[in-house]
């Protein structure tokens, strides 16, 4: 079983990540998720519908956190074995749409670490806020991982 996670990581802030949203990346994401709505893969169509450019699908922001050399650094920080954690929960609150051409900055911190079932299941909560190039919040997210 996993050792007890170090609670002193609660509140740890990670360096902001900057992500340039490109048409190519949205198209690839749309293809991989089987999008059938051309708003998410046909720029001309999106523009005809009144959008400035290609629209990013609702879960697209998940890509931002992986846009770094070592996206699983926190796994080692917390002494978790790769392969021994699962995604338990994901929440998004949306404020503005994300489009190709946007530059998104993600601020992320460990919001909580807690356990259930007498410590058999341990949870890590990440809180993220995503800003666009106009310093407006586009979305907030809460991701909970469970260590098994």
């Amino acid at each position, binding site marked *: 079983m996993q050792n007890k996670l170090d609670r002193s990581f609660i509140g740890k802030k990670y360096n902001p990540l900057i992500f340039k949203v490109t048409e190519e990346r949205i198209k690839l994401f749309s293809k991989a998720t089987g999008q059938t709505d051309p708003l998410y893969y046909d720029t001309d169509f999106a523009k005809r519908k009144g959008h400035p450019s290609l629209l990013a699908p609702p879960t697209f922001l998940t890509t931002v956190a992986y846009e770094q050399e070592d996206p699983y650094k926190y796994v080692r920080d917390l002494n978790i074995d790769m392969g021994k954690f699962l995604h*338990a929960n994901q929440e998004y609150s949306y404020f503005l749409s994300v489009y190709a051409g946007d530059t998104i900055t993600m601020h992320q911190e460990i919001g909580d670490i807690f356990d259930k079932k007498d410590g058999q299941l341990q949870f890590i909560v990440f809180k993220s806020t995503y800003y666009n190039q106009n310093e407006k919040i586009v979305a907030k997210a809460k991701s909970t991982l469970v260590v098994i």
Partner: protein
Amino acid sequence: MLWNYKTSKVGDEIPSLKIDPLNLSDLILYAKASGDHNQIHTDLDFAKKSGLPNVIAHGMLVMSFLGRMLTNAVPHSNIVNFSVQFSNMTYLDQALQCSGKVIERSCVDDKEVISVKLIVKDMVGQKKLIGQSSINIDI
């Protein structure tokens, strides 16, 4: 479209979405598109070493199917929030059924909002994800 979110009532089912069985190349493509290269999704040996019988689909890939169902039914920018709880793992070769139901219609700060309960199940009825979304009604 038969169902219209603007006139929807509590109890309405939103148009469902069926997902074909996932294969390994689907997961490899999603790993590339999302940047999530955790090998439990793409490498059978690694998945087995981690105590799993097979590779499992990225939870966020399954969530994206629910997102597709939502944006097929309501305008993207009307979605206020979208959350899921991952209840069971999705393995290769499992077809999925996404569905949703309006559970509340209310007024928040002079804006009408519907709340939708979301579910992804496999073909034997095992729940993979349960979720919720609030959607603004602009009249």
